[in-house]
Structure formats: C-alpha cells, structure tokens
C-alpha cells in the first residue's frame, strides 16, 4: 500500500498544492479581517448605520475558518477530479487496473493520499488562521479571537474531510470533473450558511458528525461501485 501511495505521490503536483494552501489562507485572512473590521467598526460598522440592530456575533477566527473550510471542500473536489475522475476520463485507470494490484489497493491508495493532503491542509489552515487572527486581535480590538474546544475542532475537521468526498460519488457516476466540482460548490454553500451568527452548520460538532457520516457512507458505496465496475 505504501508503495502505491508513493507511486501516486510521483504524479501529484505538490508545488501547486502548497501554492493553493498559501493563497487560500491569505485570501481568507484578508476577507475575514476586512469583513470583521467593517462590520464591527464603531464609525462605519452595522451599529453606526442601524443603532440597536443585532450585533455581528461571529468572531473573526470563526469567519475565517468557515471560509477556509468551504475553500478546502471545493479544493478537495479538485484533487478528487485530478487524481481519480481524470483517470476515468483519459482511461488511464484501465492501465492502472492491469497492474498486479487489486482495484481496492489502487483506489484506496488514492483516497488515502487525498485524505492525507486534506488533513495537512486543514491543520495548516487552523494554525495560520488562529495565529494570524490572534496577533491581529492583540493590535485591534475589533478583530475578535475565540478558541473552540479542541475536540470540536477535531470532529469538525474530520467531518469536513469526509463530507468533501461526497463529490466523488457524482464524479464517478457521471465520469465528469465538472459534476465533481459543482457538487462540492453546492456542499460548500450549504455547510457555510452562516446567517451572521454561526460559522456555518459545520461549526456545530453534532451536525458536523452527522454530515461526516453521510460523507463516509457515500464514499464507501462509491468505493464499492468502483471495485465492481466494468471498464
């Protein structure tokens, strides 16, 4: 299995992945900090224009992580598309399936690599968002920093990664990268629905757990289909 993962790594574009993680985090930081600054500002924030209206209660770090999770769900679909769906589209998967490894091993190696990359991306995002926003919050009281329970963070991160595998189902069914990415956009839009008070439904560990379970079930069913499919 390790050998197969190494083989997959040789085709992976790690430089591109690092760039995506860096740019995604910087863009998210900019959006989260600028939004918080504008919405909470005493002179030109919500309260200045509509005194007595509901206060924007989302902390900057929650806003940042909500945006980042959405970006990562979409990016995960791009990885799925590059590493799995495109292999079906170009038929290189038929070549891989003629090697002396079972389909289970070949597909599993791909899924493990994607999960590994996504885990690193989530950890890096958590670290960057929390560190930078904390430093900004020391300098500017409008930037709000709060730290979530570590167990909740772990549940939400795992669930987010599992949820990010749902586009695989659409991609394998239609053998289409576009279907994969559109599914991820729909999922990202649903889970980041904030209503100004929560950091999206994924911020609730119980809901996140249920959604993660849905992602796991969809992945297992799709995995089973990929093992039996005639190519």
């Amino acid at each position, binding site marked *: 299995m390790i050998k197969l993962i190494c083989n997959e790594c040789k*085709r992976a574009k790690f430089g591109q992945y690092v760039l995506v993680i860096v740019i995604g985090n910087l863009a998210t930081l900019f959006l989260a900090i600028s939004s918080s600054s504008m919405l909470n500002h005493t002179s030109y924030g919500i309260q200045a224009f509509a005194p007595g209206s509901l206060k924007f209660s989302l902390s900057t770090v929650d806003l940042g992580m909500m945006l980042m999770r959405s970006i990562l769900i979409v990016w995960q679909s791009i990885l799925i598309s590059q590493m799995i769906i495109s292999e079906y589209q*170009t038929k*290189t998967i038929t070549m891989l399936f003629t090697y*002396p490894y079972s389909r289970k091993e070949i597909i599993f190696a791909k899924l493990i690599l994607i999960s590994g990359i996504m885990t690193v991306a989530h950890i890096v995002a958590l670290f960057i968002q929390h560190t930078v926003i904390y430093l900004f919050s020391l300098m500017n009281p409008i930037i709000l920093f709060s730290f979530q329970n570590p167990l909740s963070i772990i549940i939400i991160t795992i669930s987010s990664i599992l949820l990010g595998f749902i586009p695989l189902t659409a991609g394998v069914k239609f053998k289409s990268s576009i279907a994969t990415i559109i599914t991820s956009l729909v999922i990202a839009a649903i889970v980041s629905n904030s209503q100004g008070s929560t950091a999206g439904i994924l911020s609730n560990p119980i809901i996140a757990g249920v959604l993660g379970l849905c992602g796991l079930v969809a992945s297992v069913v799709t995995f089973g289909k990929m093992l039996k499919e005639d190519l």
Partner: protein
Amino acid sequence: MNYAIKATNVCKTLGNKHILSDITIHVRQGAIYGFLGANGAGKTSFLKILMGLWNMDSGSVTLLEHNLKEGRQVYRYIGSIIETPVFYLDFSAQKNLEIHCDYLDINSYEKIHSTLQLVGLGKEATKPVREFSLGMKQRLAIGRALLSDPKLLVLDEPINGLDPHGIKFLRELLCKVNRSLGTTIIISSHILDEVAKVADVIGIIHQGKMLAEVSIEAVGKDIGDLEAYYFNLIKEGSNDQAHM
C-alpha cells in the same frame, strides 16, 4: 501441454445482450495466437476479461497457470494493450514508462532508453505524449508492454494507427520477441492479412461465440485460404444462429 491462456466457458452479458457465450480458448505457451473477428464480435470484451477489466458472469480463466480468482500477481508477467493506447498525456514518454516500472516493481529505469530506441522513439523521450500522433502512441504502448520482458503479451488491435512501416516493424518485432524470449502473444485483429503473417494458431470469434480454433498451417498461409476459411465459418455460424 502448458497453456499461457486457458479460458473455459466464459460468459458475459450486458443488459439483455450476450456479449460472450461459452468462450473456450487454449493458447499454448510460446505461441502467437491470432484472435480474429469482425468489429463488435467480442474480441476486446474477452481480452478485457483476461486483463481483469471486466468481470465474467461464469466460466474460468487461467493465465500462465494461475487462476484469475487467486489474485493478480500473475499480471506482473503480462504486457498488454487494450483498445486505444492510454498515457498520462502531460508527462513525457520517459516519465510514462517510469510510472510503468514503478507499478511493476522494476527498480531500474535503465531499460527505458533501449526500449524507446527499439520502438523508434529514442529521440522523443522527453516530449510530452500529448504531442504524439496515434502511431507514435501505439509504438510507445508496444514499448511499454515489452518493458518488463513479459511472458505473455495481450495485444488488442495493435496495428490500429500504424503506418505501413509501423505495421511491418511491429510484425517483425513480435516475431523476434516470440522467438528470442519465448513470449506467448495473443493478438486480436479484424485484418486477416496481418494475422496470417505472424500467427501460429488462429481463433475466430463471431457474435460472441468461438467458431474455430485452428493452426494456421491447417488453413494455409496464403491470405486467400484464410479469407475463404474465415468467411465460410462466419457464414456457417450465422446460419446456425438463424436456425436456432
């Protein structure tokens, strides 16, 4: 007698259509087996089952004396081209062959250069496969299939896309590999002429059924003999099915 391929009563149905009905094939080790049939006769379907890309509904297949149900280790000794040659188009010819070596646990990439030279792509090693013509891709696919010195070569319509020079080159290469390494070759085609020039034994498939398995000597090396034999069989096969 040792068989490189022994398939017994292989059946495959897609929806309501019988793609393969009780196909039985015996390819002895060291032979060049021409697998003949019209387009849609079931050649590629059968070869896909051999390579584990399709599941059969019933029957059994033994490759190099390993039952397919016992695992996939035997594929280490099999080179193949199924349907069109497929590659990672953004990668060079060299890189594509390196990937092949990685999956077959060939530790050294040393043989890649000589293989590319062998198939006439020595100067194109670093060029992305995206820029290759169909004929060049076919040559590269043949090189890839030969890279691991396989004991069995499964070639599905390998002359598609090759120009007359390429066809002659492939014919000579297959005969050379067969003679020097004892590699068993099964080559599917609908071009009778080409198969007649290289095959020791031919198998004829028509509408998913095997009509005959016969040595080329019994039919006659002359293309006219093979054509007459082939069309007679097809006619009889069609008549039999019409009476059923």
